[in-house]
């Protein structure tokens, strides 16, 4: 409190901060970047460890051996799937009933706001089939879920085959204390969404579905299986869920522990772990893995069928079988044993997974960065915004002083920016019919191009707004506007980073430098270019290119642009279908905030 009440010390501190403001900000920015990149360096990370006692100390012996049966079931499933031209409901119901499960089906339908060109679907109609293995040893208050998707074409047949074989094997074991639900969902996430909403009696996205006839207890954990070949070389673990939510780290630890035990190669983000952390290649590899996780988390979509479970407080992960060019291959029985082991350990849980971390980044499967280590990187960026609030020449008292610039001068740009944001949020989907009528484009293109057009039009709009009402802008006027905008951005990014660190950090890295230094006295053309290049839309574009680079599938500029457009349409669809928050966040808050700084640049 001495600092807050002693005027002399306060004055010294303020002087220091005002005099060294710019250098401190630069140092903070560089420190944030360096800190963030340093997170991937192995000595700075922690080794993962199992925190949950119920899963750590108990021994499990895996005996699953019916790999051949799984493959024959997969073939049978494939044949019936082709015949039915979709989910072979009857066959699947019979197959599950034959294995002693209580079988139920759920039909659902959903009309997408506009056609999804990536997956070629518009009116979606499908059926989920699930069977419940009742726990013989305990009151049926808790459940585990294993899911496999029924995808079009040849993919994921083996997953369903393995699911059925596991069901048969599990049925003969007596140690289950939790009900196990075997779910085959159609139309990947849409089916999953319908099933989860039906299970929890909610309806948040306007999906039409028939109510579930059979339920088990509260779901403790879920595993989603994706397997498209008879043999695999490695297993990939996918953790990123809706809105960047991650399951408890113990689930990843469990997977890693069993991969080690069974000698299965395991990857995360499709990248194997390397042991040479002290070489440049080793570090780059870890950094790439972490960057991939950051980018995937930042985009806020569900990267596997597990992603929607997380919203219901259910720890879930997807396991994907990869068949690469390696000599050492594993058969389905090994994957079955791995799943058996994981499910048995989960079966031992006495309470929900909660011991380990929920906020983490993974540079490799055996190393993690916890929230305490990565938050300072964001904190350093946020500090810049707060420091700039006290930049020289701006007297805080103007902010409150009634004789200063009127509320109107500041309010007008703020309101107009936000109205542009609302237009960006609402118009693309609602105007698609009109756009299709007048222009030779498809519905999807219409939506995306309308969004891009409104975004661009927003740049032209606010130049004149403050003149409209209050005449010439004053020197004090833009300072107050900048102060408001900086505070707004700081709070906005802080809240974002708490919910989805990656998104907050990526936005902060691009938005902070330009917004912190923005004044109307800078050279207009140059700073306008810089601002546009660091605007939210360009951030998405960069992310697309970096992502393609990191997954070793670099694209040309033209392809990148097409990808960018499809990312936007996916973002809007994810919001409409599953309630992803990235699109509304960008349209309603980040973009208007950026427009406020744009307004400052053209203040006159």
């Amino acid at each position, binding site marked *: 409190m001495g600092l*807050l009440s002693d005027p002399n010390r306060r004055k010294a501190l303020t002087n220091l901060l005002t005099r060294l403001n710019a250098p401190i900000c630069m140092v903070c920015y560089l420190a944030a970047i360096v800190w963030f990149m340093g997170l991937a360096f192995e000595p700075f990370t922690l080794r993962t460890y199992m925190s949950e006692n119920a899963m750590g100390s108990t021994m499990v012996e895996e005996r699953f051996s019916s790999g051949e049966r799984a493959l024959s079931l997969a073939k049978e499933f494939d044949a019936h799937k082709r015949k039915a031209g979709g989910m072979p409901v009857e066959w699947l119901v019979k197959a599950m009933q034959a294995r002693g499960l209580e079988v139920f089906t759920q039909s659902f339908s959903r009309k997408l706001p506009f056609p999804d060109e990536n997956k070629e679907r518009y009116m979606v109609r499908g059926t989920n089939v699930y069977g419940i293995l009742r726990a013989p040893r305990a009151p049926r208050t808790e459940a585990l879920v294993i899911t496999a998707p029924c995808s079009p074409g040849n993919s994921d047949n083996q997953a369903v085959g393995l699911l059925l074989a596991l069901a048969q094997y599990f049925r003969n074991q007596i140690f289950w204390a939790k009900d196990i639900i075997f779910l085959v969902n159609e139309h990947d996430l849409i089916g999953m969404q319908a099933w989860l909403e039906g299970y929890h009696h909610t309806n948040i996205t306007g999906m039409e579905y028939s109510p579930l006839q059979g339920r088990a207890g509260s779901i403790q954990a879920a595993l989603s299986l994706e397997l498209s070949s008879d043999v695999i070389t490695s297993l990939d673990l996918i953790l990123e869920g809706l809105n960047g939510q991650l399951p408890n780290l113990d689930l990843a630890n469990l997977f890693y522990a069993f991969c080690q035990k069974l000698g299965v190669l395991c990857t995360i983000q499709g990248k194997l772990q390397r042991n040479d952390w002290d070489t440049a290649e080793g570090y780059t590899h870890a950094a790439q893995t972490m960057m991939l996780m950051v980018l995937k988390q930042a985009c806020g979509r569900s990267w596997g069928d597990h992603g929607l479970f997380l919203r219901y407080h259910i720890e879930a992960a997807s396991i994907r079988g990869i068949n690469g060019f390696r000599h050492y291959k594993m058969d389905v029985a090994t994957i079955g044993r791995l799943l058996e082991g994981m499910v048995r350990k989960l079966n031992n849980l006495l309470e929900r997974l909660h011991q380990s971390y*929920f906020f983490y980044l993974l540079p490799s499967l055996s190393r993690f960065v916890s929230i305490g280590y990565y938050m300072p990187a964001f904190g350093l960026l946020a500090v810049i915004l707060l420091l700039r609030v006290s930049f020289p020449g701006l007297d805080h008292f103007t902010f*409150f002083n009634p004789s200063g610039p009127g509320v109107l001068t500041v309010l007008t740009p703020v309101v107009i920016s936000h109205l542009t944001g609302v237009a960006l949020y609402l118009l693309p989907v609602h105007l698609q019919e009109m756009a299709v009528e007048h222009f030779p484009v498809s519905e999807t293109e219409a939506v995306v191009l309308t969004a891009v057009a409104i975004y661009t039009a927003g740049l032209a709009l606010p130049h004149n707004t403050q003149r409209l009402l209050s005449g010439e802008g004053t020197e004090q006027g833009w300072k107050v506007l900048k102060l408001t905008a900086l505070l707004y951005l*700081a*709070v906005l990014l802080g*809240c974002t980073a*708490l*919910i989805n660190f990656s998104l907050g950090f990526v936005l902060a890295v691009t938005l902070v430098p330009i917004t912190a230094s923005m004044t109307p006295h800078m050279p207009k053309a140059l700073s306008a270019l810089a601002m546009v290049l660091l605007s939210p839309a360009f951030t998405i574009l960069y992310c697309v290119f970096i992502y393609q680079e990191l997954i070793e599938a670099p694209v040309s500029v033209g392809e990148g642009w097409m990808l960018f457009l499809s990312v936007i349409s996916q973002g809007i669809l994810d919001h409409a279908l599953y309630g992803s928050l990235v699109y509304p966040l960008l349209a309603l808050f980040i973009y208007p905030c950026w427009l406020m700084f744009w307004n400052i640049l053209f203040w006159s």
Partner: protein
Amino acid sequence: MAAPLTLLLIVAVTIRAVLFRSSLAELISERVEVVSPLNAWKRVVEGLALLDLGVSPYSGDVFHETPLMIYLFHFTVDYAEIVFMVSPYFVDCLSCLLASLDRAKIFRKQKYALESDRYPADCLELLRSPKEMFYIPLKVAMFYLLNPFTILSCVAKSTCGLNNAIIALFIFCTLKGSALLSGILLALATYQSIYPLTLFAPALLFFLQRLYIPVNLRRSSFWCFTLQYAFIYVGSLVVITGLSFFLLGSWDFIPSVYGFIFSVPDLTPNIGLFWYFFAEMFEHFRLFFICVFQINVFFYTIPLSIKLKEHPVFLIFMQIAIISIFKSYPTVGDVALYMAFLPAWSHLYRFLRNIFLVSCVLLACSALFPVLWHLWIYAGSANSNFYYAITLLFNFGQILLVSDYFYAYLRREHHLTHGLYLKKKDGTEATLVLK
């Protein structure tokens, strides 16, 4: 003056009416920051249902409002929205009058002091100009009616708005100089939530000052008036409590309302300091710490009354702020009440030191409350420590705000008597340090 005020009223009513009709109303009325177990509308409805069935509303552990309140709603339940819409206007209109009365008083005092040359000449810029004072009521009204906290509290139909209205009425009557009405309303406010008990001291000091009775324990006139005021207060408290007993036919409400406030059995998270502390504590320390926490609310009355005995109106503000920070089930509605007073002290502005920091902290906390609540309750990834950290920060901000205003007030008084530009003995510029 009338035109902007009317405009303000229309805007405020529109905002509330729109929110009442929107789907947000339900969401808001579930927020723990906005409603507490004491004043949640859901609980009032439950109490009313029990009352209609002929069961004592206190028989469950749901309803904790006072009997008079439930009988008020018994007759107006169909018009509840209107009641809640109107209640802030009480506060508002009264605060307008409050400010204008306060204004007249300060003018008189300033004039007197100037004429008698008591203030040094360079203090003229510290005195409030009539023009500044003219807009204070409007600003107070704006601060209360358009404060998002008030709006949230009103849309959630939290009975906190009615309690605020009673306290505002009490302040109004006090400033009007009506000891009888002031005593009755203070009793009513105390009956509603106990804590306004501490407002007894400032009200008494105000009347003593108004009647030119010196605060001197050896003077019979002092004791005479004190006893008179205390008699009005205690008498009406007894009458109100007795009335509740006759309405309800039992004393159930005493443990259920006051026991509930004092012993804090409901540890639902809120923006206060109690819940986390008592959730974490071993059971056998509970009684001791409850005493400590509750004494904390009342204790500040003594030092503050001594220090501010010349300035009872400011003392009222301090007391209301302290109650809303340290009470057992605070909501944002309580915060809004003392914040409405801030424009009345706009002349202290030049002496405030941390106002910018404090406003940033309060703004950031208001945004972080729902975010961390989401992470804790819905996403399950954060835990109660995260939420409590923000609660602590929010209260830190509030305490800093109040102490800053306290310091500024004292400093202004100091300057009024010692001159604005202080010199040390050796002639250099001196600075004031609060220690």
